[in-house]
């Protein structure tokens, strides 16, 4: 395992020290609870936005804390959802009296830990609403499964809900909007290489030189299917086709996230984005906004994911609203 780390057990603490030193104007860091908190939180009268999850997906979530996006991120160990104590501390830190929205990716651990935190917050008289993202079409959804994973749409929910909270949406309206965004997004990802969890010390899976994993999540978990490597034109179609067969993206403005998993260079992501646009245009999908880059990653994994959001005018307006975070600024 080759990493710029001191020790597998100190990766998160070391990184948080760096985050604090790098972004003193935007955020403060609670090292004990491993929180990245907006520098000016809590903001009286504004709904607080809290997300969080395992680390290793940077810039998500800590890099999305700031004006127009999250108020706090609870940082779990690498690929391990944060504890209820952390999420509770984040909730208290950003509660400005108007309640707090939890943005939770649908993983068993995340859901349980955020649920318990919401109970703790409720017991302290803080009103909490939760939105669940579950946009990964690689996973079959049924009553008898854990449901779909929350992946790329989480970034879009955080941006759009963040702008709405800044505008003064109340908790109920904000939760409704955020869930609407989550429900109208779909994603699909693939990996060219595995990542290596520092504590595990070896790659989570092994791929031959001509193989990809299709339908991977963001925790280095293997995908649904191993397939032969192919030109990016073909790979784009393996991502876009299942998304389009899962949900109707025609007849509305669509926001596209062409996301790198961490180890894929930008020059390749732009190529993937071009192919994706070709496929969408052939399918009659109208790309209204787009984002190309590393936003929700799996450590150093090479690969990419595509997320489509069926937007509306409200979402577009909030998408365009200013945002100032280390991971996303306009």
């Amino acid at each position: 395992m080759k990493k710029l780390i001191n020790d597998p057990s100190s990766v998160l603490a070391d990184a948080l020290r760096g985050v604090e030193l790098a972004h003193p104007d935007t955020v403060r860091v609670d090292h004990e609870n491993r929180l990245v908190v907006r520098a000016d939180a809590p903001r009286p009268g504004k709904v607080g936005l809290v997300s969080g999850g395992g680390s290793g997906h940077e810039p998500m979530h800590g890099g999305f804390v700031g004006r127009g996006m999250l108020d706090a991120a609870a940082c779990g160990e690498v690929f391990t959802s944060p504890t209820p104590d952390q999420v509770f501390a984040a909730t208290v830190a950003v509660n400005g009296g108007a309640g707090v929205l939890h943005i939770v990716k649908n993983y068993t651990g995340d859901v349980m830990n955020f649920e318990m935190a919401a109970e703790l917050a409720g017991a302290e008289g803080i009103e909490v609403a939760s939105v669940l993202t579950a946009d990964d079409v690689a996973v079959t959804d049924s009553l008898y499964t854990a449901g779909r994973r929350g992946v790329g749409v989480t970034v879009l929910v955080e941006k759009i809900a963040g702008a709405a909270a800044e505008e003064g949406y109340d908790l109920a309206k904000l939760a409704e909007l955020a869930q609407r965004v989550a429900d109208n997004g779909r994603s699909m990802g693939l990996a060219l290489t595995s990542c290596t969890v520092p504590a595990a010390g070896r790659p989570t899976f092994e791929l031959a030189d001509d193989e990809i994993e299709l339908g991977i999540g963001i925790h280095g978990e293997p995908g649904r299917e191993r397939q032969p490597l192919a030109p990016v034109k073909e790979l784009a179609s393996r991502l876009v086709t299942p998304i389009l067969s899962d949900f109707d993206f025609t007849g509305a403005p669509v926001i596209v996230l062409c996301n790198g998993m961490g180890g894929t260079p930008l020059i390749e992501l732009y190529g993937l984005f071009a192919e994706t646009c070709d496929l969408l245009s052939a399918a009659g999908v109208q790309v209204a906004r787009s984002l190309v880059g590393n936003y929700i990653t799996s450590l150093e994994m090479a690969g990419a994911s595509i997320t489509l959001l069926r937007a509306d005018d409200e979402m577009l307006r909030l998408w365009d609203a200013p945002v100032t975070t280390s991971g996303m600024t306009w």
Partner: protein
Amino acid sequence: MTSELTVQKFAAWMHAFADDVVANEALLTDLDRQIGDADHGGNMVRGMKAVAELDAADFANARDYAKKAAMTLIGKVGGAAGPLYGTLLLRLAAALPDDGPIDHAGWSAALHAGVDGVRDRGKASAGDKTMLDALLPAVEAFDANPDDAWAAAAAAADAGRAATVPMVAHKGRASYLGERSAGVADPGATSSTLLVQAAARTLA
């Protein structure tokens, strides 16, 4: 089967479990690497090391100690394992009698409460390839073998763990793999087996 319930006894169980988890960290992580996200070993070690640091002398009775151990897991572990093991211990603690004699029925009630807690929290069923596939047979064997309850439970947990190997996961992270989740033992069922085995060594 009647024994004494004391803080020391309960703490001995937790220490034995902590030792086993530390000794098996690489195994737990490697199972999770194959069908999950490679953190179960680290999660359990982080949590149980913190539990092992609790000073038994600080607690009035086993119930309080167990409750604190539960809160420690919840506060330290995260992931799926944190809330599940935390809830298991929290419910088990609440069902414990006061320190003093505890009989087979007393332990059985506590174990049932704990395992029901896991079921409530995680909404999984037998056969979903989770820790329940070790815990449910363990409790069943405990009930069915009043004379040798802990040993029977430990054996049943291990058999349940082994039975998860061919299973296709329906809950937890391994479920994302679909059919490809078959062929590897469930990490949580494996750590749960260590928990029951530690009980058999310390509580029998």
